Protein backbone atom coordinates (compact mmCIF):
# COMPACT_ATOMS: atom_id res chain seq x y z
CA UNK A 1 0.00 0.00 0.00
CA UNK A 2 2.64 2.50 1.04
CA UNK A 3 5.00 2.02 -1.86
CA UNK A 4 3.25 -0.07 -4.48
CA UNK A 5 0.13 2.04 -4.85
CA UNK A 6 1.95 5.33 -5.53
CA UNK A 7 4.12 3.60 -8.14
CA UNK A 8 0.95 2.27 -9.73
CA UNK A 9 -0.65 5.73 -9.73
CA UNK A 10 2.45 7.14 -11.41
CA UNK A 11 2.37 4.42 -14.02
CA UNK A 12 -1.31 4.69 -14.84
CA UNK A 13 -1.44 8.49 -14.95
CA UNK A 14 1.80 8.70 -16.91
CA UNK A 15 0.73 6.16 -19.51
CA UNK A 16 -2.64 7.83 -19.81
CA UNK A 17 -1.04 11.18 -20.53
CA UNK A 18 1.22 9.71 -23.19
CA UNK A 19 -1.65 7.92 -24.91
CA UNK A 20 -3.86 10.96 -24.63
CA UNK A 21 -1.43 12.90 -26.80
CA UNK A 22 -2.24 10.71 -29.77
CA UNK A 23 -6.00 10.63 -29.33
CA UNK A 24 -7.84 13.72 -30.43
CA UNK A 25 -11.25 12.34 -29.43
CA UNK A 26 -13.12 14.53 -27.00
CA UNK A 27 -13.57 11.87 -24.35
CA UNK A 28 -9.80 11.88 -23.77
CA UNK A 29 -9.62 15.62 -24.01
CA UNK A 30 -12.20 15.75 -21.26
CA UNK A 31 -10.23 13.62 -18.77
CA UNK A 32 -7.04 15.45 -19.72
CA UNK A 33 -8.53 18.80 -18.82
CA UNK A 34 -9.76 17.52 -15.47
CA UNK A 35 -6.40 15.93 -14.69
CA UNK A 36 -4.63 19.21 -15.34
CA UNK A 37 -7.03 21.01 -13.03
CA UNK A 38 -6.50 18.42 -10.29
CA UNK A 39 -2.77 19.04 -10.46
CA UNK A 40 -3.36 22.74 -9.98
CA UNK A 41 -5.72 22.10 -7.08
CA UNK A 42 -3.21 19.84 -5.34
CA UNK A 43 -0.68 22.61 -5.71
CA UNK A 44 -3.02 25.08 -4.05
CA UNK A 45 -3.58 22.82 -1.05
CA UNK A 46 0.16 22.34 -0.77
CA UNK A 47 0.57 26.09 -0.29
CA UNK A 48 -0.52 25.55 3.30
CA UNK A 49 2.47 23.25 3.78
CA UNK A 50 4.69 26.08 2.62
CA UNK A 51 3.17 28.66 4.91
CA UNK A 52 3.40 26.19 7.76
CA UNK A 53 7.08 25.55 7.13
CA UNK A 54 7.92 29.24 6.87
CA UNK A 55 5.95 30.15 9.99
CA UNK A 56 7.33 27.28 12.05
CA UNK A 57 10.92 28.07 11.11
CA UNK A 58 10.50 31.78 11.90
CA UNK A 59 8.65 31.19 15.16
CA UNK A 60 11.21 28.70 16.40
CA UNK A 61 14.00 31.15 15.62
CA UNK A 62 12.23 33.82 17.62
CA UNK A 63 11.54 31.46 20.51
CA UNK A 64 15.13 30.28 20.63
CA UNK A 65 16.33 33.89 20.39
CA UNK A 66 18.67 32.65 17.66
CA UNK A 67 21.02 35.21 16.15
CA UNK A 68 19.02 37.59 13.94
CA UNK A 69 15.70 36.52 15.45
CA UNK A 70 14.45 40.08 15.07
CA UNK A 71 14.50 39.64 11.31
CA UNK A 72 12.31 36.56 11.65
CA UNK A 73 9.83 38.79 13.45
CA UNK A 74 9.85 41.05 10.38
CA UNK A 75 9.07 38.07 8.14
CA UNK A 76 6.18 37.05 10.37
CA UNK A 77 4.86 40.61 10.49
CA UNK A 78 5.02 40.94 6.71
CA UNK A 79 3.31 37.58 6.22
CA UNK A 80 0.58 38.21 8.78
CA UNK A 81 -0.12 41.69 7.42
CA UNK A 82 -0.55 40.42 3.88
CA UNK A 83 -2.77 37.53 4.98
CA UNK A 84 -4.96 39.81 7.08
CA UNK A 85 -5.26 42.50 4.41
CA UNK A 86 -5.83 39.91 1.72
CA UNK A 87 -8.83 38.33 3.39
CA UNK A 88 -10.54 40.79 5.69
CA UNK A 89 -12.77 42.29 3.04
CA UNK A 90 -13.47 39.06 1.19
CA UNK A 91 -12.70 38.98 -2.50
CA UNK A 92 -12.60 42.77 -2.65
CA UNK A 93 -9.46 42.78 -0.49
CA UNK A 94 -7.07 42.63 -3.40
CA UNK A 95 -8.70 45.17 -5.70
CA UNK A 96 -6.50 48.00 -6.98
CA UNK A 97 -6.31 50.87 -4.49
CA UNK A 98 -6.56 48.73 -1.35
CA UNK A 99 -3.86 48.81 1.28
CA UNK A 100 -2.97 45.27 0.18
CA UNK A 101 -2.09 46.54 -3.27
CA UNK A 102 -0.30 49.58 -1.84
CA UNK A 103 2.03 47.20 -0.02
CA UNK A 104 2.46 45.31 -3.25
CA UNK A 105 3.35 48.43 -5.21
CA UNK A 106 5.52 50.21 -2.66
CA UNK A 107 7.23 47.32 -0.93
CA UNK A 108 7.08 44.20 -3.05
CA UNK A 109 7.62 45.74 -6.50
CA UNK A 110 10.61 47.98 -5.75
CA UNK A 111 12.49 45.25 -3.87
CA UNK A 112 11.74 42.76 -6.61
CA UNK A 113 12.88 45.15 -9.35
CA UNK A 114 16.02 46.03 -7.41
CA UNK A 115 16.93 42.38 -6.80
CA UNK A 116 16.50 41.80 -10.52
CA UNK A 117 18.64 44.84 -11.35
CA UNK A 118 21.53 43.49 -9.26
CA UNK A 119 22.17 41.37 -12.32
CA UNK A 120 23.67 44.41 -14.05
CA UNK A 121 26.46 44.41 -11.45
CA UNK A 122 26.83 40.66 -11.34
CA UNK A 123 27.01 40.25 -15.10
CA UNK A 124 29.93 42.72 -15.06
CA UNK A 125 31.81 41.00 -12.25
CA UNK A 126 31.19 37.55 -13.72
CA UNK A 127 32.52 38.75 -17.07
CA UNK A 128 35.60 40.18 -15.39
CA UNK A 129 36.39 36.95 -13.57
CA UNK A 130 35.50 34.41 -16.23
CA UNK A 131 36.64 36.01 -19.45
CA UNK A 132 40.39 35.35 -19.32
CA UNK A 133 42.57 33.91 -22.05
CA UNK A 134 43.35 31.07 -19.67
CA UNK A 135 42.30 28.13 -21.85
CA UNK A 136 41.04 27.68 -25.38
CA UNK A 137 37.48 27.36 -24.13
CA UNK A 138 37.65 30.46 -21.96
CA UNK A 139 39.15 32.34 -24.89
CA UNK A 140 36.32 31.36 -27.21
CA UNK A 141 33.86 32.48 -24.55
CA UNK A 142 35.72 35.78 -24.17
CA UNK A 143 36.07 36.53 -27.86
CA UNK A 144 32.47 35.86 -28.82
CA UNK A 145 31.14 37.80 -25.85
CA UNK A 146 33.37 40.72 -26.85
CA UNK A 147 32.22 40.65 -30.47
CA UNK A 148 28.60 40.71 -29.38
CA UNK A 149 29.13 43.46 -26.81
CA UNK A 150 31.10 45.56 -29.29
CA UNK A 151 28.08 45.72 -31.61
CA UNK A 152 26.84 48.62 -29.49
CA UNK A 153 30.10 50.48 -29.61
CA UNK A 154 31.09 52.74 -32.50
CA UNK A 155 34.31 51.42 -33.99
CA UNK A 156 34.53 53.50 -37.11
CA UNK A 157 35.08 51.43 -40.25
CA UNK A 158 35.12 48.04 -38.44
CA UNK A 159 31.64 48.58 -37.07
CA UNK A 160 29.95 47.33 -40.21
CA UNK A 161 31.98 44.11 -40.22
CA UNK A 162 31.51 43.58 -36.52
CA UNK A 163 27.79 44.22 -36.79
CA UNK A 164 27.56 41.59 -39.51
CA UNK A 165 29.72 39.13 -37.59
CA UNK A 166 27.65 39.59 -34.44
CA UNK A 167 24.40 38.81 -36.19
CA UNK A 168 25.98 35.88 -38.01
CA UNK A 169 27.22 34.37 -34.73
CA UNK A 170 23.80 34.80 -33.16
CA UNK A 171 21.91 33.22 -36.04
CA UNK A 172 24.28 30.49 -37.24
CA UNK A 173 26.78 28.83 -34.84
CA UNK A 174 24.75 29.90 -31.81
CA UNK A 175 21.71 28.24 -33.32
CA UNK A 176 23.66 25.06 -34.04
CA UNK A 177 24.92 24.79 -30.46
CA UNK A 178 21.48 25.47 -29.03
CA UNK A 179 19.98 22.75 -31.18
CA UNK A 180 22.53 20.27 -29.92
CA UNK A 181 21.67 21.20 -26.34
CA UNK A 182 17.94 21.09 -27.02
CA UNK A 183 18.15 17.64 -28.58
CA UNK A 184 20.30 16.38 -25.71
CA UNK A 185 17.92 17.82 -23.14
CA UNK A 186 15.03 16.28 -25.05
CA UNK A 187 16.57 12.82 -24.89
CA UNK A 188 17.57 13.19 -21.25
CA UNK A 189 14.16 14.46 -20.21
CA UNK A 190 12.19 11.85 -22.15
CA UNK A 191 14.38 9.07 -20.80
CA UNK A 192 13.92 10.42 -17.28
CA UNK A 193 10.17 10.67 -17.81
CA UNK A 194 10.12 7.03 -18.92
CA UNK A 195 12.17 6.01 -15.87
CA UNK A 196 9.67 7.81 -13.69
CA UNK A 197 6.64 6.24 -15.36
CA UNK A 198 8.14 2.75 -15.12
CA UNK A 199 9.10 3.30 -11.50
CA UNK A 200 12.84 2.97 -12.04
CA UNK A 201 13.64 6.48 -10.90
CA UNK A 202 11.88 6.73 -7.56
CA UNK A 203 14.22 8.57 -5.24
CA UNK A 204 11.62 11.35 -5.06
CA UNK A 205 9.25 8.97 -3.29
CA UNK A 206 11.51 8.68 -0.29
CA UNK A 207 11.73 5.60 1.93
CA UNK A 208 10.09 4.41 5.07
Amino acid sequence: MRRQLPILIVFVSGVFMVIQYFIPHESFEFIYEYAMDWIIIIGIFAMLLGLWSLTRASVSKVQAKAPGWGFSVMTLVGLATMLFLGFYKGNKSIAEGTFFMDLFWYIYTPIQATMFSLLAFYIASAAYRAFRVRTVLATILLVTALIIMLRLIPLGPISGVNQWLASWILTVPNMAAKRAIWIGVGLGATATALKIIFGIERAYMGKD
Partner: protein
Amino acid sequence: MNFYERLMQLDRRWIYLGVAIAVTIPVLAPFKVPVYITPEAKAVYEFVENTKPGEIIFLAIDYDPNAMAELHPMARTIMRQSFSRGIRLIISALSQNGPGMAEQLISQISKEYNKKNGVDYVYLGYKPYPGITILAMGQNFRIPFPTDYYGTPLDSLPMMDGVRNYDDVKGIISIVAGNIAEYWINYANGRYKAKVFFGVTGVMTADYYPFLQSGQLFGLLGGLKGASEYERLAKQEGVATEGMSIQTVAHLVIIAFIVVGNIGFFMSKKKKR
Protein backbone atom coordinates in the same frame (compact mmCIF):
# COMPACT_ATOMS: atom_id res chain seq x y z
CA MET B 1 50.82 40.80 -4.39
CA ASN B 2 52.33 42.77 -7.25
CA PHE B 3 50.53 45.29 -9.42
CA TYR B 4 49.53 42.85 -12.15
CA GLU B 5 48.22 40.29 -9.73
CA ARG B 6 46.18 43.00 -8.18
CA LEU B 7 44.73 43.81 -11.59
CA MET B 8 43.79 40.18 -11.89
CA GLN B 9 42.00 40.02 -8.58
CA LEU B 10 40.27 43.32 -8.24
CA ASP B 11 37.80 43.45 -5.39
CA ARG B 12 34.47 43.07 -7.16
CA ARG B 13 33.20 46.18 -5.42
CA TRP B 14 35.37 48.26 -7.77
CA ILE B 15 33.52 46.67 -10.65
CA TYR B 16 30.17 47.40 -9.04
CA LEU B 17 31.25 50.99 -8.57
CA GLY B 18 32.32 51.21 -12.21
CA VAL B 19 28.93 49.95 -13.38
CA ALA B 20 27.09 52.30 -11.02
CA ILE B 21 29.03 55.28 -12.31
CA ALA B 22 28.53 54.18 -15.91
CA VAL B 23 24.77 54.21 -15.57
CA THR B 24 24.45 57.26 -13.29
CA ILE B 25 26.72 59.87 -14.82
CA PRO B 26 25.16 59.85 -18.28
CA VAL B 27 21.74 60.19 -16.65
CA LEU B 28 22.76 63.24 -14.65
CA ALA B 29 24.98 64.84 -17.26
CA PRO B 30 23.81 63.65 -20.67
CA PHE B 31 26.43 63.50 -23.35
CA LYS B 32 26.46 62.12 -26.85
CA VAL B 33 28.28 58.97 -27.72
CA PRO B 34 28.88 58.42 -31.41
CA VAL B 35 26.62 55.83 -32.99
CA TYR B 36 27.42 53.54 -35.87
CA ILE B 37 24.69 53.98 -38.46
CA THR B 38 23.62 50.77 -40.17
CA PRO B 39 22.76 50.94 -43.88
CA GLU B 40 19.26 49.58 -43.24
CA ALA B 41 18.50 52.43 -40.82
CA LYS B 42 19.89 54.93 -43.23
CA ALA B 43 17.57 53.56 -45.90
CA VAL B 44 14.52 54.47 -43.81
CA TYR B 45 15.87 57.93 -43.14
CA GLU B 46 16.69 58.60 -46.76
CA PHE B 47 13.30 57.42 -47.89
CA VAL B 48 11.63 60.07 -45.72
CA GLU B 49 14.24 62.63 -46.63
CA ASN B 50 13.72 62.07 -50.34
CA THR B 51 9.97 62.33 -50.13
CA LYS B 52 8.88 65.73 -51.41
CA PRO B 53 6.78 68.15 -49.39
CA GLY B 54 3.10 67.49 -49.99
CA GLU B 55 3.62 63.84 -50.81
CA ILE B 56 2.15 61.18 -48.56
CA ILE B 57 3.75 58.50 -46.40
CA PHE B 58 1.72 55.78 -44.71
CA LEU B 59 2.82 55.42 -41.09
CA ALA B 60 1.57 52.34 -39.26
CA ILE B 61 1.82 52.42 -35.47
CA ASP B 62 1.36 48.71 -34.89
CA TYR B 63 2.41 48.24 -31.30
CA ASP B 64 0.91 48.66 -27.87
CA PRO B 65 2.24 50.30 -24.70
CA ASN B 66 4.31 47.17 -23.89
CA ALA B 67 6.73 47.98 -26.67
CA MET B 68 6.70 51.72 -26.10
CA ALA B 69 10.22 51.97 -24.67
CA GLU B 70 11.83 50.76 -27.88
CA LEU B 71 9.35 51.83 -30.53
CA HIS B 72 7.90 55.14 -29.41
CA PRO B 73 11.14 57.05 -30.12
CA MET B 74 11.08 55.74 -33.70
CA ALA B 75 7.48 56.77 -34.35
CA ARG B 76 8.04 60.13 -32.72
CA THR B 77 11.17 60.93 -34.72
CA ILE B 78 9.70 59.85 -38.03
CA MET B 79 6.60 61.93 -37.40
CA ARG B 80 8.64 64.99 -36.52
CA GLN B 81 10.89 64.56 -39.50
CA SER B 82 7.92 64.21 -41.85
CA PHE B 83 6.00 67.15 -40.46
CA SER B 84 9.01 69.42 -40.48
CA ARG B 85 9.54 68.58 -44.14
CA GLY B 86 5.90 69.20 -45.05
CA ILE B 87 5.22 65.54 -45.78
CA ARG B 88 1.66 64.42 -45.17
CA LEU B 89 0.91 61.27 -43.19
CA ILE B 90 -1.78 58.64 -43.20
CA ILE B 91 -1.55 56.88 -39.85
CA SER B 92 -3.10 53.60 -38.75
CA ALA B 93 -2.85 51.63 -35.50
CA LEU B 94 -3.51 47.93 -36.01
CA SER B 95 -2.43 46.64 -32.62
CA GLN B 96 -5.41 46.11 -30.38
CA ASN B 97 -4.23 48.11 -27.39
CA GLY B 98 -2.36 50.71 -29.42
CA PRO B 99 -4.84 53.24 -30.87
CA GLY B 100 -5.20 55.39 -27.75
CA MET B 101 -1.45 55.56 -27.31
CA ALA B 102 -0.99 56.44 -30.98
CA GLU B 103 -3.64 59.14 -30.75
CA GLN B 104 -1.80 60.79 -27.87
CA LEU B 105 1.43 60.82 -29.79
CA ILE B 106 -0.20 62.19 -32.93
CA SER B 107 -2.01 65.01 -31.19
CA GLN B 108 1.13 65.96 -29.27
CA ILE B 109 3.38 66.14 -32.31
CA SER B 110 0.85 67.68 -34.68
CA LYS B 111 0.46 70.48 -32.16
CA GLU B 112 4.23 71.02 -32.09
CA TYR B 113 4.23 71.57 -35.84
CA ASN B 114 0.84 73.19 -36.09
CA LYS B 115 -0.45 70.50 -38.42
CA LYS B 116 -4.14 70.04 -39.10
CA ASN B 117 -6.08 66.83 -38.98
CA GLY B 118 -7.53 66.01 -42.38
CA VAL B 119 -5.22 68.41 -44.18
CA ASP B 120 -1.71 67.47 -43.12
CA TYR B 121 -2.41 64.09 -41.65
CA VAL B 122 -5.20 61.55 -41.30
CA TYR B 123 -5.51 59.15 -38.39
CA LEU B 124 -7.42 56.05 -39.39
CA GLY B 125 -7.27 54.23 -36.05
CA TYR B 126 -7.84 50.54 -35.42
CA LYS B 127 -9.67 47.68 -37.13
CA PRO B 128 -9.53 44.02 -36.12
CA TYR B 129 -8.04 41.34 -38.41
CA PRO B 130 -4.82 43.13 -39.39
CA GLY B 131 -4.28 40.77 -42.34
CA ILE B 132 -7.60 41.53 -43.95
CA THR B 133 -7.35 45.22 -43.13
CA ILE B 134 -3.94 45.51 -44.77
CA LEU B 135 -5.14 43.57 -47.79
CA ALA B 136 -8.27 45.69 -48.12
CA MET B 137 -6.35 48.95 -47.82
CA GLY B 138 -4.43 47.83 -50.90
CA GLN B 139 -7.66 48.34 -52.81
CA ASN B 140 -8.94 51.35 -51.00
CA PHE B 141 -8.37 52.82 -47.58
CA ARG B 142 -12.13 53.41 -47.42
CA ILE B 143 -12.99 49.72 -47.30
CA PRO B 144 -11.70 49.04 -43.82
CA PHE B 145 -11.85 52.68 -42.78
CA PRO B 146 -14.96 54.41 -44.14
CA THR B 147 -14.32 57.05 -41.51
CA ASP B 148 -11.23 58.15 -39.65
CA TYR B 149 -10.54 57.57 -35.95
CA TYR B 150 -12.69 60.56 -35.01
CA GLY B 151 -15.68 59.43 -37.11
CA THR B 152 -15.29 61.82 -40.03
CA PRO B 153 -15.90 60.14 -43.42
CA LEU B 154 -12.65 59.90 -45.36
CA ASP B 155 -14.36 61.39 -48.39
CA SER B 156 -14.94 64.63 -46.55
CA LEU B 157 -11.27 64.99 -45.58
CA PRO B 158 -9.46 67.26 -48.05
CA MET B 159 -6.22 65.32 -47.77
CA MET B 160 -7.86 62.07 -48.91
CA ASP B 161 -9.09 63.61 -52.12
CA GLY B 162 -7.88 61.34 -54.90
CA VAL B 163 -6.00 59.15 -52.44
CA ARG B 164 -7.24 55.61 -52.84
CA ASN B 165 -4.71 53.02 -51.83
CA TYR B 166 -1.01 52.17 -51.47
CA ASP B 167 -0.42 53.37 -55.04
CA ASP B 168 -1.07 56.91 -53.89
CA VAL B 169 1.47 56.92 -51.06
CA LYS B 170 5.24 56.96 -51.42
CA GLY B 171 5.70 54.04 -49.07
CA ILE B 172 4.72 52.41 -45.83
CA ILE B 173 6.67 52.66 -42.59
CA SER B 174 5.36 50.22 -40.01
CA ILE B 175 6.61 50.56 -36.47
CA VAL B 176 5.61 47.14 -35.34
CA ALA B 177 5.79 44.58 -32.54
CA GLY B 178 4.60 41.05 -33.22
CA ASN B 179 3.24 39.20 -36.20
CA ILE B 180 1.49 42.15 -37.86
CA ALA B 181 4.87 42.69 -39.51
CA GLU B 182 4.40 39.57 -41.58
CA TYR B 183 1.11 40.81 -43.01
CA TRP B 184 2.77 43.99 -44.20
CA ILE B 185 5.41 42.00 -46.01
CA ASN B 186 3.10 39.33 -47.41
CA TYR B 187 0.17 41.53 -48.37
CA ALA B 188 1.22 45.15 -48.77
CA ASN B 189 4.50 44.28 -50.42
CA GLY B 190 3.73 40.79 -51.73
CA ARG B 191 0.40 41.66 -53.28
CA TYR B 192 0.44 45.34 -53.94
CA LYS B 193 4.15 45.92 -54.39
CA ALA B 194 4.16 48.70 -51.83
CA LYS B 195 7.51 49.88 -50.50
CA VAL B 196 7.59 48.68 -46.89
CA PHE B 197 9.95 49.88 -44.12
CA PHE B 198 10.00 48.54 -40.58
CA GLY B 199 10.88 49.67 -37.12
CA VAL B 200 10.86 46.53 -34.91
CA THR B 201 11.72 45.53 -31.34
CA GLY B 202 15.19 44.28 -30.46
CA VAL B 203 14.16 40.63 -30.23
CA MET B 204 12.50 40.73 -33.66
CA THR B 205 15.43 42.36 -35.46
CA ALA B 206 17.35 39.24 -36.46
CA ASP B 207 14.17 37.65 -37.86
CA TYR B 208 13.65 40.40 -40.40
CA TYR B 209 17.16 40.70 -41.81
CA PRO B 210 16.48 38.04 -44.44
CA PHE B 211 13.63 40.17 -45.86
CA LEU B 212 16.09 43.00 -46.48
CA GLN B 213 18.27 40.68 -48.48
CA SER B 214 15.39 39.29 -50.49
CA GLY B 215 14.24 42.80 -51.35
CA GLN B 216 10.84 42.50 -49.69
CA LEU B 217 11.78 45.07 -47.12
CA PHE B 218 13.41 48.39 -47.98
CA GLY B 219 14.74 49.53 -44.61
CA LEU B 220 14.80 48.40 -40.99
CA LEU B 221 15.23 50.00 -37.58
CA GLY B 222 16.06 47.40 -34.91
CA GLY B 223 15.29 48.00 -31.26
CA LEU B 224 16.58 50.81 -29.09
CA LYS B 225 19.76 50.94 -31.14
CA GLY B 226 17.83 51.45 -34.36
CA ALA B 227 15.80 54.16 -32.68
CA SER B 228 18.95 55.95 -31.54
CA GLU B 229 20.46 55.71 -35.00
CA TYR B 230 17.36 57.29 -36.41
CA GLU B 231 17.33 60.07 -33.85
CA ARG B 232 20.92 60.76 -34.74
CA LEU B 233 20.23 60.81 -38.48
CA ALA B 234 17.26 63.10 -38.06
CA LYS B 235 19.24 65.29 -35.64
CA GLN B 236 16.59 64.90 -32.98
CA GLU B 237 18.50 63.27 -30.16
CA GLY B 238 16.07 62.15 -27.49
CA VAL B 239 15.25 59.24 -25.20
CA ALA B 240 16.73 56.57 -27.43
CA THR B 241 20.01 58.42 -27.86
CA GLU B 242 20.24 58.93 -24.14
CA GLY B 243 19.44 55.29 -23.41
CA MET B 244 21.92 54.08 -25.98
CA SER B 245 24.62 56.41 -24.65
CA ILE B 246 24.23 54.85 -21.23
CA GLN B 247 24.28 51.36 -22.75
CA THR B 248 27.39 52.17 -24.75
CA VAL B 249 29.22 53.50 -21.70
CA ALA B 250 28.14 50.53 -19.61
CA HIS B 251 29.31 48.09 -22.25
CA LEU B 252 32.60 49.95 -22.53
CA VAL B 253 33.10 49.76 -18.79
CA ILE B 254 32.56 45.99 -18.77
CA ILE B 255 34.88 45.55 -21.73
CA ALA B 256 37.47 47.70 -19.98
CA PHE B 257 37.32 45.51 -16.89
CA ILE B 258 37.72 42.40 -19.02
CA VAL B 259 40.74 43.94 -20.71
CA VAL B 260 42.25 44.96 -17.37
CA GLY B 261 41.78 41.45 -16.00
CA ASN B 262 43.47 39.97 -19.03
CA ILE B 263 46.38 42.37 -18.92
CA GLY B 264 46.90 41.38 -15.31
CA PHE B 265 46.66 37.71 -16.20
CA PHE B 266 49.04 38.02 -19.11
CA MET B 267 51.68 40.09 -17.40
CA SER B 268 51.77 38.13 -14.16
CA LYS B 269 52.14 34.93 -16.15
CA LYS B 270 55.03 36.49 -18.05
CA LYS B 271 56.68 37.57 -14.84
CA LYS B 272 56.48 34.12 -13.32
CA ARG B 273 58.39 32.81 -16.28
